């Protein structure tokens, strides 16, 4: 739950520092592993940081608390950003990040709930998170429970029809305990979303499916805190937050470049990236 006792400026400063640390650690981890999804990790980092450090009611010491808020990382290829965030939030030791994708590591290339505390469902194939989130939200409603469900999807990911089947179910049932955040970085694996299969008008699509929609800058902590603080946007409707982001955010030469979808920084690129990020704190 958002802490209202701390002044907003201080809250934002803390988030900014944490997100910066997460980005640095994540990039080093990807470099060491020699694999990873650099661009999408960086576009999602500010959203994940805000959720885990200010919004979600989760307890690293009791990750299976039945009353926890559920967060589902539907864009599971961005496990790097998720693991780094979970580690800094205390779900497992930060040092363990150096095992990312190594033989027998529990930090698999895509998150595995049977091994990693804090992971709700196994993702990797795109378009799986939202249906599972809808099921969890229906479950909470059946129990008249107060916990909420959040799911982060990619924008290219929304080309999967399963999302729209789930969106229809959520709209029909008025699941106002459910929030989907779309990481709207406008790029997918090989090209821009608009050059592949366009999504626009995206907000209208969600509205047509019975959702309340907000559009925010996904790197603006103030805006993110505002929108998360005002959930649900409308009683009786699920919420869709279209977070406008930049793939590769924080590293000038990675920003908005499709080529950085799963490119791994060389030692030289890593040093340059870390220097930029460190200068920004």
């Amino acid at each position, binding site marked *: 739950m958002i802490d209202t006792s701390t002044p907003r400026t201080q809250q934002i400063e803390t988030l900014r520092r944490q997100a910066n640390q997460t980005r640095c650690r994540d990039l080093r981890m990807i470099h060491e592993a020699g694999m990873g999804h650099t661009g999408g990790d960086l576009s999602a980092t500010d959203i994940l940081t805000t959720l885990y450090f200010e919004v979600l009611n989760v307890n690293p010491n009791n990750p299976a608390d039945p009353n926890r808020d559920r967060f589902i990382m539907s864009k599971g290829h961005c496990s790097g950003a998720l693991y780094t965030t979970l580690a800094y939030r205390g779900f497992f030791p930060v040092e363990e990040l150096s095992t990312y994708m190594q033989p027998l590591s529990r930090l698999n*290339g895509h998150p595995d709930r049977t091994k990693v505390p804090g992971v709700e469902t196994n993702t990797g194939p795109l378009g799986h998170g939202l249906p599972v989130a809808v099921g969890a939200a229906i479950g909470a409603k059946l129990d008249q429970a107060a916990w909420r469900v959040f799911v982060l999807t990619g924008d290219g990911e929304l080309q*999967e029809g399963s999302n729209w089947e789930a969106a229809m179910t959520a709209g029909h049932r008025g699941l106002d305990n459910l929030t989907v955040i779309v990481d709207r970085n406008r790029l997918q694996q090989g090209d821009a979303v608009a050059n592949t299969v366009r999504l626009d008008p995206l907000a209208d699509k969600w509205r047509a499916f019975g959702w309340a929609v907000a559009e925010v800058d996904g790197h603006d902590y103030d805006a993110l805190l505002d929108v998360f603080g005002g959930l649900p946007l409308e009683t009786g409707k699920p919420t869709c937050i279209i977070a406008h982001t930049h793939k590769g955010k924080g590293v000038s030469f990675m920003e908005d470049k499709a080529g950085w979808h799963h490119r791994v920084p060389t030692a030289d690129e890593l040093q340059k990236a870390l220097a930029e990020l460190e200068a920004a704190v």
Partner: protein
Amino acid sequence: MSTLFDCRNAFAETLVALGEADERIVVVNNDSIGSSKTGAFRDRFPDRLINVGIAEQNLVGVGAGLANAGKIPFVCSAACFLTGRALEQIKADVAYSNANVKLVGVSSGMAYGPLGATHHSIEDFAWTRAIANLTVVAPADPEETAQAVRLAANTPGPVFLRLSRMGVPALYDHSYAFKFGKASMLRDGGDVTLIANGVMVTRALEAATLLEAHGIEARVLNMATVRPLDQEAIIAAARETGALVTVEEHTTYGGLGSAVAEVVVQTVPVPMRILGVPGVFAPTGDPAWLLEHFGLTPEGICDAALELKKPVLR
């Protein structure tokens, strides 16, 4: 060390050549132009590459529709998503409808290593070979890949080609003539038969060399086509060598080994070993490490054959 080849390149080059010769050849893709190596085809024939986005059910359905319109679609995607996500489209729209669709699943088996079990495609033989009217092929080297792609284009009806991205040495030259449903004997022997396909064929050949040192002459069959199966070659192997070891980069549930066993138990029952991933989700690890982990190595295959022959040797 012999040169290793990524069979996707043979696929990509053959596809462009086919496209030059026949304008009915089109490619359908799910935002995987890079990994399916269809960029050259797109650059040469921009209108004939249809990228439907990240949407595999749509991918296969659109492929069936293109076939209906008289095209010869090569529907390309990572093998795990193509078969796992769109299995009903493969069954109903392609196989049952007898649509002239060529399904190409790339990076099959455990080629995606550390990306984990969602990205491993080790159930695809079981899923696809259970479907009637679908030819299922896992080529072993660049030449066999190129021939399988050409044959698929020139043979009306549904085909699933399972391609890896792991490097393999060349096994065949132009004198080879690949046929659907026909095993190729890469080495003859009378003591045991090693039956493999895809990236495991080379390892089976290496195992046969190791077995020589134990005085065992192994026959090696490349069973590239899993459906329809070369029953004749299997029956002959059972009769003439008396023991079979199958090797696949796939779960041991329902794949190549199961297909061979179905024939063997009903014709010439002989002892068998089925090597593969033993019915588990593979852990995190790079592809070579995973193959080692599951004993899918020349040594592992050799040991299985020795164990099978033990009563005879004693």
